[in-house]
């Protein structure tokens, strides 16, 4: 464990990761809307302009496609850009750049050009925000080989995962739950440590049921499992998926509940269920249950609490598989 630890929230932990990586490596640059003088709408990049100057903390015009597209050009040139998209609901104009180019530059040039960039964006509901400020469309990005999708669930992991993402040789979509930003504080060491990409973590061990979650849902899951002997997996990286950890757990418990905030249809839970059914079906004692957001357009704040899976709904899901 490195040096000092401080109690930090996720905003502070991400800020610290950016600061330390920029100090360590002059090829790391930040670009996005309001990231410089303002420090970002969630204050993630606060203080970085003062430390690193406007050549490295770049306030861009309001244009998502060129934010990501320029990051691709920078990455190919040899920088390590960290692009911020102000909210996940505004990333869609940049999907063309992510899907058509970032994901395939390595392949199409047989490794001559690569795209070591990070696209950070706040995602998820629960902060009573306007339309398109509460999206969790992570599954879209998991359907694109060549892109990695990372979702931290706590300050400690946020810092370690972001450092790994910045150092990763391939493009990473880094999703930060707005609800978690200031919800929890935990010990976050100063200085260098990493949390590897592509590895899930067992948050708590258990015998009867495996509950799989990531990002914003993890904390509700931990409350919901209190009365059960449940094994909780925090995926942390959705793609590439850590199948090994999942299979090992499922083979032990024989029951699976998957929890996510996104709508059920074609959500990442569908991929997980199918993966488990294909490879561990014979170990299952009960059907796989998904507790998810509903198949509706994300409601505005008055109804958002009904949309996001609650502790009660997660408990009900677990009770259902425990009946078998």
């Amino acid at each position, binding site marked *: 464990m490195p040096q000092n630890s401080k109690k930090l929230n996720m905003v502070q932990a991400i800020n610290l990761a950016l600061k330390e990586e920029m100090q360590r490596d002059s090829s790391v640059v930040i670009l996005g809307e309001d990231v410089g003088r303002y420090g970002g709408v969630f204050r993630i990049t606060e203080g970085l302009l003062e430390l690193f100057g406007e050549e490295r903390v770049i306030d861009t015009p309001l*244009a998502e496609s060129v934010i990501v*597209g*320029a990051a*691709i050009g920078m990455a190919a040139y040899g920088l390590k850009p960290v692009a911020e998209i102000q909210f996940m609901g505004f990333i869609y104009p940049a999907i063309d750049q992510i899907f058509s180019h970032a994901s395939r530059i390595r392949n199409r040039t047989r490794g*001559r050009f690569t795209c070591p960039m990070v696209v950070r964006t706040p995602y998820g509901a629960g902060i009573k925000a306007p339309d398109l400020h509460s999206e969790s469309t992570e599954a879209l990005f998991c359907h694109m080989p060549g892109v990695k999708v990372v979702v931290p669930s706590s300050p400690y992991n946020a810092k370690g995962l972001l450092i790994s993402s910045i150092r990763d040789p391939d493009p990473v979509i880094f999703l930060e739950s707005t609800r978690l930003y200031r919800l929890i504080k935990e010990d976050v060491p100063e200085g260098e440590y990493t949390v590897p990409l592509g590895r899930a973590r067992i948050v708590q061990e258990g015998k009867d049921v495996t509950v799989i979650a990531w990002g914003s849902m993890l904390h509700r899951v931990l409350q919901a499992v209190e009365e059960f002997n449940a094994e909780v997996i925090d995926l942390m990286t959705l793609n590439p998926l850590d199948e090994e950890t999942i299979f090992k757990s499922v083979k032990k418990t024989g029951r699976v509940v998957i929890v996510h905030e996104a709508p059920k249809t074609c959500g990442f839970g569908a991929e997980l269920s199918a993966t488990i059914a294909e490879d561990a079906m014979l170990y299952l004692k009960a059907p796989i249950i998904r507790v998810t957001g509903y198949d509706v357009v994300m409601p505005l704040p008055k109804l958002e609490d009904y949309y996001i899976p609650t502790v009660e709904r997660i408990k009900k899901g677990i009770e259902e598989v425990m009946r078998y």
Partner: protein
Amino acid sequence: MPERIIESFNIKRLDILDDNGNADESLTPSLSDSEIKRIYELLTLSRTFDHHALSLQREGRMGTYASILGQEASQIGSAFAIKKSDWIFPSFREMGVYITMGYPVHMLFQYWSGDERGMKCPDDLNIFPLAVPVGTQVPHAVGAAMAAKYKKDKVAVVCYFGDGGTSKGDFHEGFNMAGVFKLPVVFICQNNQWAISVPREKQTASKTLAQKAFAYGFEGIQVDGNDVLAVYKATKEALDKARNGGGPTFIECFTYRMGDHTTADDASRYRSKEEVEAWKAKDPILRLKLFMERNGLWTEQYQKEVEEKSRDMIDEAVKKEEAIERPHPEDMFAYTYESLTQRQIREMRDF
């Protein structure tokens, strides 16, 4: 208060050679005789490449291909001004640029035959893989230019696209960002008058494409895209300006797509023979030939030699390409990420 004019622009057009090869001497760029001959040889080589590519496609030995016929001056003229250390972000119709930069010709055939390995740019060049989506390469060029500026490298970035590309959002976003940060980038539009079947006037109501640059705070110029000297001069000046911190330039090369859009297209369905005929008189290679003849640089014998040399080079490249072994199926996994994923390792057992 009276109304006032607070800003106005003039759009320049540059022509040096006329259709008969007469040059405006006050504008002629300083090129040695051997450089002019080299340009002529590259024009011929590129046309020979194009011709062979079309034949190979017809014979089923190559996939869909986008011809450069008629646009050679725009491509060779601009690329001749680019240094090897510069960065290039091409669209799919820039084979003349690749050839001028010294990209191995057999690799171009390899790419168009459906083999990714043909786009593995050699280490001494910085040419991004050609962009198949229209216009999406503009932001990449902008990003590379930002990186070059940040690293204080004395390189310029060149981005190619077509008239259709100027309608895309990425054109706007990229131009806008290039202007704001005064980046070392040269945007070259080959206005070949058509985007598949859509004519230039249906693409934009602007009188010229060049004028669009002024809205982003930098200069745009239209050049005769069939005049290799004009294209060279405009590009050279824009590159020097970019390298010296003068910011971006937009060059509209006014040219014409003499062939079908691609080998999958039939242009006779949407444009007249007369229109195509009229452009034949402006052939870019013929024009340089007339200029060279006037200046004692061209003879029948020289022409024969140039043609023969081009044919030999292309024949050899085709042979070389056709001798390359097919990639192994495992190869499609190898470059998704730097390392294979757990799932890919299992999927690869199929092979």
